[in-house]
């Protein structure tokens, strides 16, 4: 005789599966490809922001190598974004122009913290962002290469001081600056193979206007931000 309770385990399982399916967790690409979270996604709250270690994979060695040049070769955003892209891939070390130093003044419009623990800092060359006019660049305040590091941590603390020393953030959610802050930033030009066509930045600020970079040039890592 057929046991009428036999389908019960499956019926019990079903609500749990549905409950899990209703919470879309942000994709697990370590934040290197993906730029924005979208409405309906679940994101994690994180703390210990100065100490977070770099979790990315793409050109990891290059991203955690600060340039040592002391005299800037590039003093504007467009001087960096106008460079010729180097021939590099997922594993390439810093090369060519990437070993030079860029230093310039700019305005901070928005930032976020992707899952690789680099801060993405979207800056431009006009006091307020103006679509079609402002030249943008993403400068990345890198996660620490390891837990003994003090150099990268110091830069993270510089950046955190500029944004009000928050102690927690939600991964991936851009914060918009209603009054862009003037900053001076230094770092190494870096060709991001995950964003060759640009697209770093956000469409979640200033009413949803597209505020995204035009190609893969960044400063990465940032050496100083003041």
């Amino acid at each position, binding site marked *: 005789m057929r046991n009428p309770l036999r389908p019960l385990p499956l019926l019990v399982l079903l609500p749990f599966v549905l409950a899990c399916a209703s919470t879309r967790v942000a994709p697990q690409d370590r934040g290197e490809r993906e730029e924005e979270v979208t409405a*309906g996604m679940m994101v*994690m709250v994180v703390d210990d922001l100065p100490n977070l270690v770099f979790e990315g994979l793409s050109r990891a060695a290059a991203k955690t190598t600060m340039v040592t040049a002391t005299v800037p070769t590039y003093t504007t955003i467009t001087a960096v974004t106008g460079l010729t892209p180097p021939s590099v891939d997922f594993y390439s070390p810093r090369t060519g122009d990437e070993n030079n130093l860029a230093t310039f003044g700019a305005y901070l419009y928005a930032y976020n913290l992707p899952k690789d623990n680099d801060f993405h800092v979207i800056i431009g060359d006009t006091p307020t962002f103006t679509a079609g006019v402002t030249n943008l660049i993403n400068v990345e305040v890198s996660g620490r290469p390891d837990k003994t590091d003090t150099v990268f941590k110091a830069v993270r603390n510089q950046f955190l001081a500029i944004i*009000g020393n*928050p*102690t*927690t953030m939600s991964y991936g*959610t*851009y914060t918009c600056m209603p009054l862009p802050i003037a900053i001076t930033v230094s770092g190494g030009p870096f060709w991001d193979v995950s964003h060759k066509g640009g697209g770093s930045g956000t*469409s979640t600020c200033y009413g949803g206007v597209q505020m995204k970079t035009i190609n893969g040039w960044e400063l990465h890592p940032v050496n100083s931000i003041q």
Partner: protein
Amino acid sequence: MRNPLRPLTLLLLPFVLAACASTRPASRDGGEREEEVTPGQMVMVVGDLPNLIFLGQSRRDAKLTMVAAGVPNYTSITAVTSLAPPPGLGYYSPRTGVENNYARFTAYLYAYNLPADNDFHVILGDTPVFTPNVTKLINIEVSGRPDGADVVFKAVRNQFLAKIGNPVAMAHGTYTCMAVPIALTVGGGPFWDVSHPNGGSGTSSCYGGTPVKTSNGWELHPVTSVQ
């Protein structure tokens, strides 16, 4: 004949439960009691910020009743926060006594968040930079809309969103810190929050972890204008 795969279904259950447990959502109190999210918590990203409907329960009708703007009865944060708490207020009380008066003052925006009840919590103080034990704080709440037809509450939400750079998405419950506090002039009705009679609205996640928290249950709620 016994199906050998039959216990497999039950064996799957612990994995499903474990996967669910690893994503701790923010507690489901509608965001009215809880003020802050904590590291490790999962929070939802929300859009359509001007249109979100109020989802709270505590003193719901009072929170959705705007006082008439006119000559303000209170023109400073301390004029509101030093009022005597209305006696006998409960979870369902309508606006009463001084809660029907109008407050309007200029103050500085230090931090804001969007709890799960869809009110914006806006933490203001009376000094250009927050200074512990000096700055007088108040939480003013830019309420969720009472319903989808409302235009009045939506207009105030849009006023506030314009002040913070018109974001179109936010993570529920995560405070945003204002590195450079913005001066705002706000109007609204004093409101005694029975969920926070001893204060505690605000955050310890800005300015290096310094508590930026209110001292009692007085708020402006709902806000009638942000300029």
